[in-house]
């Protein structure tokens, strides 16, 4: 059959359009995770280092005032979204408990929706991981689930906690995908579980290895528990870790020991609670560990991000691991061996320790354990910061962390473990005279000194969990405790733009590009908002 030239041209054009649209929903290779194309945000923190720094620079300090909402996507049944949306090739992946929403990142229109009906529980969820043509998500009852990125079709469903034995296990984290593997952790640390990190085969879901954060009887580290049974000692692994491909090491942070406010029945350091553990990604074997808060009695999980930064430090180029910890100290470690290079307070309200000793242990102030009557201690139980994301701008050399100045009255009592109940050591009370205050602080990586800070004046210091994101446009985006998403000059801290979301913010912002437009997105309350520059 002969066809006319215009027809052939038309067919060719159609072919190109089809090809383009196929590419739009194309794969995320391991290489894309190691060095993400600037347009994509393919992991919870943007890349595997958790610096939460984007190379996009269409939105700058000069034009951010023109940033305006482009779309809002409402998540039915949600109350407090805590996920960071991921974006790859024009598709956004957003989660709430047991559900995944794939959206056209340019318009906010839904492409597909997946709901896992296997769990009656609905704990929060922090997002997905992407690798190849798969989307990975955890369910509230600790299943790791793989979906097809293009359709949301279920590919496999792998339970990774024995909930028949202990129904207190749950999961909320965004999984971490690396070369051929998906890494996950567990929640439930205050209810009597034994924390662990699990690696699964990305193709099949098969479990490859498990690292328990609480050593079993007789294993190295078990001597730091005074005989307290590992099975309900806590050390949950409820946030996403980071990965260094050169060392093939995973860095995973661990939660508090249980019971949280009562340490009388667990004498010793309680390894590896409140720590960062460096694990061989192929075997799960422990390479080194650093414990931020030995024998914690204030529920200061070390779940804040272990941020990987390569920089000159103390006179030579180093591979660093940086964390602003819930206990009030900012730590810089050498991530090749876990040695501490710097430990410095980043909040003023800090009463439990005088500082950090050269070996990394806190220089303790005596009598700071909670009592049955209550003991006033700073930071409060929310911590000097918490799981919401910090960020690092390699250009400014500044580490941006949402900091909370607050104290609490900590109460404890000796409670025996009871399978029916959670395993926590009583409670904290708010001090009516101390409402607390958030500050966005910019810390100098080299010294831990504050370069600038933005005092925040919202009313919800106990309920807001707002995180940050830095960009090559020299901006730092942050949520606050009044429900605003704002942008400040990354070097001076001057606030240049803000938008009231009308919601409590319990998530961290991200950025992506589709076509020639840079977007900034944030989940707030029950909605996902996406912003771009208002066209001139």
């Amino acid at each position, binding site marked *: 059959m002969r066809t006319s030239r215009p027809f052939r041209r038309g067919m060719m054009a159609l072919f190109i359009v089809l090809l383009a649209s196929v590419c739009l929903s194309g794969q995320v290779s391991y290489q894309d995770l190691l060095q993400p194309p600037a347009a994509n945000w393919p992991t919870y923190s943007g890349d595997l280092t958790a610096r939460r720094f984007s190379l996009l620079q269409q939105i700058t300090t000069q034009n951010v005032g023109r940033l305006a909402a482009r779309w809002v996507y409402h998540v039915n049944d949600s109350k407090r979204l805590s996920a960071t949306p991921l974006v790859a090739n024009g598709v956004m992946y957003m989660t709430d408990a047991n559900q995944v929403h794939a959206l056209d990142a340019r318009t906010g229109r839904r492409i597909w929706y997946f709901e896992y009906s296997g769990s009656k529980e609905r704990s929060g969820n922090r997002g997905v991981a992407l690798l190849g043509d798969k989307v990975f998500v955890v369910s509230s009852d600790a299943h790791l689930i793989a979906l097809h990125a293009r359709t949301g079709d279920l590919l496999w469903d792998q339970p990774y906690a024995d909930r028949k034995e202990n129904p207190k296990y749950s999961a909320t984290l965004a999984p971490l995908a690396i070369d051929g593997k998906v890494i996950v952790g567990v929640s439930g640390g205050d209810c009597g579980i034994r924390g662990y990190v699990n690696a699964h085969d990305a193709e099949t879901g098969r479990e490859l290895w498990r690292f328990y954060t609480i050593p079993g009887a007789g294993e190295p580290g078990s001597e730091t528990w005074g005989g307290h049974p590992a099975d309900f000692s806590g050390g949950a692994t409820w946030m996403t870790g980071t990965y260094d491909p050169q060392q093939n090491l995973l860095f995973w942070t661990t939660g508090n020991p249980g019971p949280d406010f009562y340490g009388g029945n667990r004498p010793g350091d309680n390894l590896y609670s409140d720590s960062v553990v460096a694990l061989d990604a192929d075997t799960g074997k422990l390479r080194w560990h650093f414990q931020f808060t030995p024998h914690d009695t204030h529920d200061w999980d070390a779940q804040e991000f272990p941020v990987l930064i390569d920089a000159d430090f103390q006179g030579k180029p180093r591979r660093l691991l940086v964390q602003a910890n819930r206990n009030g100290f900012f730590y810089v470690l050498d991530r090749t061996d876990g040695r501490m290079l710097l430990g410095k307070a980043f909040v003023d309200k800090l009463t439990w320790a005088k500082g950090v000793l050269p070996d990394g242990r806190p220089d303790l102030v005596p009598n700071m354990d909670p009592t049955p009557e209550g003991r006033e201690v700073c930071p409060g139980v929310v911590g000097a910061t918490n799981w919401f994301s910090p960020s690092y701008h390699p250009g400014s050399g500044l580490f941006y962390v949402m900091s909370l100045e607050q104290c609490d009255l900590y109460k404890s009592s000796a409670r025996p473990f009871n399978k029916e*109940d959670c395993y926590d050591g009583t409670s904290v009370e708010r001090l009516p005279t101390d409402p607390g205050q958030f500050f966005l602080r910019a810390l100098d990586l080299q010294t831990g000194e504050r370069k600038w800070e933005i005092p925040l004046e919202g009313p919800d210091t106990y309920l807001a969990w707002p995180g940050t994101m830095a960009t090559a446009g020299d901006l730092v985006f942050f949520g606050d405790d009044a*429900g605003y998403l704002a942008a400040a000059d990354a070097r001076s801290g001057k606030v240049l733009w803000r938008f009231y979301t009308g919601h409590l913010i319990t998530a961290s912002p991200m950025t992506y590009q589709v076509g020639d437009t840079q977007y900034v997105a944030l989940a707030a309350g029950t909605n996902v908002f996406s912003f771009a520059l208002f066209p001139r």
Partner: protein
Amino acid sequence: MNSRKQAQWHRSTMVLLLISGFLFLVPSISAATPEGEREKSAEVKNPYAHDKEAIEAGEQHFQGGCAFCHGTRGEGGRGPFLSESNRVRGLSDENLFNLLRHGIPGTPMPPSSLDDTRMWQLVSFLRSLHFSASQEDVPGDAGSGHALFSRAGCFGCHMLKGRGGLVEPDLSDIGGSRSLEKLREAVAKPSASVVPGFRKILVQTRGGSQLLGVARNHSNYSIQMIDLKGELHLFLREELAKLSYEPGSIMPTADLSQDEFQNLMAFLSRQVLSSEKGEEKNR
């Protein structure tokens, strides 16, 4: 719709049909029971309501799983306060039971694995936290308390059923919405804890005028405040030369005799709105 989803849809439809079939059966079962009993079965009641031992047992469960977030007496901590929460008070026993059983989706409030007996004990304890002042037998002369309330100038700041000022909280339902303990504290030590939305604030405008009042809401970018005259001001931060949050409450400490204090308590504890409230129904 692909074939797998079609199959899922068919399965879901079948399940729905089966469920609706079952629902059709239910009225015929109920219809066989006497009218009065059917009324009763409409709402599940707490078999341990007001039971002292159940309240004590419930308190143990509360310390085990709830106090961690909500404080030892439901006063709040990292979770919301419960002691005087209208939301909790307004729930029926059954709804409260279900809320505890299933948790609150999308929030850190988890489901509970307590068995039914323990769960009802927990409900009993929570109810015991919500005994409002109006439900207690508060001694004192309410009439004298009313006179004192007028004489001391309380109406200057507080609204009471349509009469009074706009600076401090409306007291029209204060007896129905606060425990006696909290009411006592609010009068004896007004600055011990400030009600959210009534933080004391002092601002100076760029024009030079200074205003003292309460911040009904505030952020880094705008302030919504009521001044001491009851005027509403909506400021953008750039319109203000100075702003400071002052410690304590606008309300002064009253120098009252023991009798005066008691009379005032008797008066305030009787300030309730409609008896149609969930709390009243649950008595």
